[in-house]
């Protein structure tokens, strides 16, 4: 079981050093994902025992455009992964099924409709979203103009 928690900036202060690390998390299967810079960017991420899970060790070099925080005393990874360093974790997490995407997208769309929004930019659309948009349009349930972007 994998839990992914979102934490806004102010909530990080409840963790030691201002952000969580593996010693501050109880369950090995918890990821805390920073809410900043859009959740789509997933800027910072912690996973307990990530070194065991993903092969990170004190000898793992820093990735290009990313950062693996290491304990200054022991040199061991703390579990704090920024930017591209997250990829080793996220590449192991399977994509949600289309039904989940559809449910989430419809919930977001309901909010947009309530706010009077009729068109939006999907700044980073993935393949399941493509399929959901198409399905909703075929069923006559897509009530927006959407300009999509492909990552």
């Amino acid at each position, binding site marked *: 079981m994998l839990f992914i928690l979102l934490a*806004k*900036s*102010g*909530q990080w202060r409840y963790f030691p050093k201002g952000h969580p690390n593996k010693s501050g998390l109880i369950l090995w299967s918890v990821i805390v994902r*920073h*809410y*900043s*810079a*859009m959740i*789509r*960017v*997933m*800027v*910072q991420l912690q996973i307990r025992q990530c070194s065991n899970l993903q092969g990170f060790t004190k000898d793992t070099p820093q*990735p*290009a*455009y*990313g*950062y693996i925080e290491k304990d200054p005393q022991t040199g061991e990874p703390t579990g704090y992964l*920024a*930017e*591209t360093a*997250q*990829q080793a974790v*996220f*590449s192991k*997490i399977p994509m949600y099924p289309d039904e989940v995407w559809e449910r989430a997208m419809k919930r977001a769309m309901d909010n947009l409709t309530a706010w009077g929004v009729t068109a939006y*930019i999907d*700044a*980073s*659309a*993935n*393949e399941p979203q*493509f*399929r959901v*948009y*198409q399905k909703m*349009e075929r069923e006559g349930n*897509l009530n*927006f*103009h*959407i*300009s*999509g*972007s*492909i*990552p």
Partner: protein
Amino acid sequence: MNDWAKDRCADPEPLLTLADEYRSSLFDPIGRKWWGDGTPLSKTSLIVDEYVEGGHGTMSVNETDFNRMIEEAKKGCLVRVHAMGDGTVRSILDVIEKVRTLDPNNISQCQQIAHCAFLRDEDIPRFRRLNVVADFFTSYILP
């Protein structure tokens, strides 16, 4: 594509080829999402002045990516870039300036830079001149 985009899209190229298949009157996948940098929080955003702790940070795109942005823009693709640092924003504006210079008629294609958490005063007029939307997103700053 930046590596960390892969959490959402294992391989973007098939998506690009699928774009026409999925394009409809309501859904138009016309944009390309770029992660121009990370965030100032982890000093992975390029800042013109130094960070308090030193250093200017970094971008996550390079000259090859810039050329690809230009090529895709020439084909009508909209360039949509995540850029937090003022140095990154400036570099992306430079790229879009090149796009406009190469094809002045391209000015009608509205490009977009998302977040713009830091901006240099001298770069602000360039958004209007180059027809670039500054897509501010400030809620991450708020507690």
